[in-house]
């Protein structure tokens, strides 16, 4: 697949994923399910930017690990601060 086609795919996937994020955020589900769904989509979106727009899929693994590490670490921090009080209260 040409790089232009990859970019178009990433853009369409990012718009669809953003719509999914808003849907999960507004949906009446348990906090655990909502946090899991929204942050999973956020990490997928980050991957589309890192590997698609930034083209790190062509480069050394260590740079991909570093760049993927940021959204993963942020998601773990956000999930922990939201869910630890939720599970302690229930």
């Amino acid at each position, binding site marked *: 697949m040409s790089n232009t086609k990859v970019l178009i795919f990433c853009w369409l996937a990012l718009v669809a994923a953003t719509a999914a994020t*808003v849907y999960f955020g507004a949906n009446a589900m348990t*906090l655990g399910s909502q946090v899991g769904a929204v942050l999973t989509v956020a990490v997928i979106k980050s991957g589309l930017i890192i590997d698609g727009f930034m083209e790190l899929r*062509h*480069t050394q693994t260590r740079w991909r690990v570093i760049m993927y590490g940021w959204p993963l670490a942020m998601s773990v921090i956000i999930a922990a601060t939201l869910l630890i009080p939720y599970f302690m209260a229930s």
Partner: protein
Amino acid sequence: MSTSSKQPQAAVVQPAASHALPGDLAMWIFILAELAAFTLFIIAFSVTQMLYPEMFQAGRAQLDPSTGFAMTVGLLSSGFLAALAVERVRANRPRQASLLIVAAIASAMVYVVLKLSEYTHLANAGFDLEYNMFFTLYWLLTLFHFLHVWLGLLVLAFLAWRCFKLGYDAENRSGMESGVMYWHMIDLAWVIIFPLVYLLG
């Protein structure tokens, strides 16, 4: 004479070389430093939300997720157009890249206009920096990102001008790639900030 006839010609698009980072290494180090700064704001927001969940729930109710959706699509579309512009430079079509960068700036202005309107609405309603902890962190985190967007727009404007002057081509594109990588970093930060501030909790 058409603009395209003035541009250097090349037969094929050269993809990013395998194992090579797009742009300068210095830009990637700068990007990591910027992400570290965003990390501090995100941790501050998350930990304070853990301490005052009801306050954050009430504060978040003043924000409109559909506006956040439109802002996000504006930014991501801008990133897409900027990435296409890099492709055009690799194909030795800098004038086409210049047009794509201008389109990227226009798309990013959707975010800027909506964000300014949200800021105005909140400030007029009294939800300013001192209203409570949620709004203190909302303003600090989103303004920090907003300032980065403005810096990124200046970088994109410079890239558009440089491409229009045929300053980049397939052999000389490191500055172009570095500027566009910075713009993608701003998208990446927003992809995490958006659900944290507008949706979760």
